[in-house]
């Protein structure tokens, strides 16, 4: 353990001279900049949720938290008539996290859609897998990103004495403390914003997306590649009204197509044609004896001006933590959307990190100390690496139409469909 940490410090020192975003200055004497206990850089879904989770934590009651968001404050006056096409699939585990600080109630009062079944099949063969939940639990929820952001913003405003949110603030420079404790140098991380103001913090959490500035400034290596694919998302209207609570996915060689349920009356679905998508590894219970193959609904038209394109890639940071730095969400891992796990992995990171920080605060520990940060990193890297590897494997497996691979994946899909404990395990893993 000691050797690994020493090498970490060495890399920080080296990175300090290579990255323009970083400097390692000695500060003589205590600086007069305000000292925050935690600064979260990046106010997206994951960053705002992290700030909320800490703000509502009982052991953080007298701690000061700062959230830096580069964009403007998004105020949702009222729900728009048309549905937004940026949505996320929220797993039950993420819903639990959101309800732990009261955001889920706001979402329920606004708009969301639960789904209970998922059917996936292969285009090249008739292999099919059906995920179903016997008891009346929901497999997941489709929620618009704007709705989630609004709920989080409302909850942040309620704890404004502990959590300060700065909009239109982008950090331009991070200054790390010296790796070895020096008598007269500040042990905190210094952050300089675009407008020149500076802050000090005991722990910097990077939640600034897959092009994370915090990660680059810390010199953390990122393993990444771009898929030769983009995702297209749109809102569809179905031709007939059905009980719209099933998610459909079909693997085509050019990429999977998915239909995610939105509403009963005016069905809004999202097509996601990204590369080979791994079906949601959402655990399911035993299928009913009569698991009739349901036919997907037929589409009437596409909502005007609702199509969006975004590029896809994979990324994984080699380290999630450094002394006084932690990465969460897309800054740490970027995944193909085929499994719908991207934001759920981010919420999982938040649960884990908030738990470790809460215990550390109750033990009076220095929040930036590596001893509990490495606990978070180990826990999450194990989970995330497995999911990333599986997602990537499935993407590659399903993007060919070569006969041996088609045969292999057909048998694999059918075998998995037949073995219900395996499906349950998959569902449980992805629901966390």
């Amino acid at each position, binding site marked *: *353990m*000691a050797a690994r*940490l*020493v090498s970490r410090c060495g890399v920080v020192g080296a990175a300090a001279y290579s990255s323009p975003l970083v400097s390692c200055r000695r500060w003589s004497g*205590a600086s007069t900049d305000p*000292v925050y206990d935690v600064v979260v850089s990046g106010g997206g879904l994951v960053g705002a949720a992290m700030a909320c989770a800490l703000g509502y934590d*009982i*052991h*953080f*009651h*007298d*701690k000061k938290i700062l959230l830096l968001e580069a964009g403007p404050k998004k105020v949702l006056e009222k729900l728009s008539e048309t549905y937004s096409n940026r949505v996320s699939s929220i797993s039950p585990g993420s819903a639990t996290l959101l309800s732990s600080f009261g955001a889920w109630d706001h979402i329920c009062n606004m708009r969301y859609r639960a789904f209970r079944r998922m059917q996936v099949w292969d285009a090249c063969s008739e292999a099919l897998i059906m995920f179903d939940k016997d008891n009346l639990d929901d497999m997941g929820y489709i929620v618009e990103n704007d709705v989630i952001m609004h709920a989080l913003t409302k909850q942040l405003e309620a704890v404004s004495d502990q959590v300060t949110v700065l909009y239109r603030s982008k950090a331009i420079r991070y200054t790390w403390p010296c790796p*070895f*404790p020096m*008598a*007269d140098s*500040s*042990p*905190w991380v210094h952050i300089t914003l675009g407008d020149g103001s500076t802050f000090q913090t005991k722990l910097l959490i990077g939640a600034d997306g897959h092009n994370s500035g915090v990660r680059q400034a810390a010199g953390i290596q990122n393993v990444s590649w771009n898929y030769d694919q983009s995702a297209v998302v749109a809102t569809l209207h179905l031709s007939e009204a059905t009980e719209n609570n099933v998610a459909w996915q079909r693997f085509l060689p050019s990429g999977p197509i998915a239909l995610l349920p939105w509403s009963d009356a005016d069905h809004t679905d999202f097509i996601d044609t990204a590369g080979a998508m791994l079906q949601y590894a959402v655990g399911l219970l035993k299928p009913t004896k009569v698991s009739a193959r349901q036919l997907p609904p037929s589409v009437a038209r596409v909502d005007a001006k609702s199509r969006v394109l975004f590029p896809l890639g994979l990324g994984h940071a080699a380290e999630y933590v450094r002394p006084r730095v932690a990465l969460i969400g897309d800054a740490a891992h970027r995944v193909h959307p085929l499994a719908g796990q991207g934001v759920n992995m981010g919420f999982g990171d938040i649960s884990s990190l908030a738990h470790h920080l809460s215990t550390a*605060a*109750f*033990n*009076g*520990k*220095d929040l930036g*100390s*590596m*001893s509990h940060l490495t606990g978070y990193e180990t826990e999450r890297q194990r989970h995330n690496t497995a999911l990333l590897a599986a997602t990537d494997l499935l993407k590659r497996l399903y993007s060919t139409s070569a006969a041996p691979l088609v045969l292999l994946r057909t048998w694999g899909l059918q075998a998995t469909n037949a073995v219900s404990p395996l499906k349950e395990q998959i569902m449980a893993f992805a629901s966390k």
Partner: protein
Amino acid sequence: MWGGGKLGSSGGWFLRVLGPGGRNTKAARHLISSAVYVKNQLSWILQIKPRVFNEYRTMWFKSYRTTFSCLNRIKSFRYRWARLYSTSQTTVDSGEVKTFLALAHKWWDEQGIYAPLHSMNDLRVPFIRDNLLKTIPNHQPGKPLFGMKILDVGCGGGLLTEPLGRLGASVIGIDPVDENIKTAQCHKSFDPVLDKRIEYRVCSLEEIVEETAETFDAVVASEVVEHVIDLETFLQCCCQVLKPSGSLFITTINKTQLSYALGIVFSEQIAGIVPKGTHTWEKFVSPETLESILESNGLSVQTVVGMLYNPFSGYWHWSENTSLNYAAHAVKSGVQEHPMSAEFAFKGETEELQANARTNPAVHEELKK
């Protein structure tokens, strides 16, 4: 006096260690024998413990105990080194001061030589916090120890003082080594919240006993009692500065064959977990000794629990076995004592105390000076 000690009262035992060859260049052939004289009001105890480690890589360890004037015949292959005895009233050992002075700047390196002490916080802070929370009816979230005054004796660089400060307590940390206090002071100055809650002073416990009698809700003496000269006086002073029903927390090392083998030989000389010369086996205190001194000072021992360090993982664990490290929690009796004065010899006092049913009858012993 040493009832229940793991060592036999006479004779010794052999510990043969066959070390690897080719270590001749290493100047690690220690040959230590020391004589420690401890004077207290009740008895003289003379202990001479020679340890021989010769270059044929065998070590004989013999321990002898004699009381009063019997001097033991000591067999040794090499020289003997006798430590001078101290007759002063201070509990501070100047040899220890020198050892710690050399390492004063290394306190806050979490992977440095004090790493085991940093990770010991995972055990001792919850231990102190949970036992103190039992006495607080409603604690504030975020600052569970708010309103408590704690004295950290032998605070070193403030490794334990700072977590207690973060939990909301007002802490005074004292240490006889001024470099330690300078390091601690500098480290806490960067955190405005801690700066207000913690105060450091360069002094020994006896020096502040007069002015701080009965003012602390808790006294913490972690990894200290194995470094003091006069344990009885030290614990007496700890008791005097505590409020009635206040808590005393001690963590230290037991005096057993195992603690010699692992705590001195392995940790200091072989594995280098602890800097050489930090500990002296004679000064280790067994839980039974500690309990008897604490009881005689009016403190009732609530908990004694063992701690185990895993050098490979770097983490400490609680353990049933107290033969290496252990933690103890004692509570001062709730009897209202006289404001502290050095001599309490009078009969009226002792009668009053004896009349109180809850008083330990042995407590009047400490009133004699």
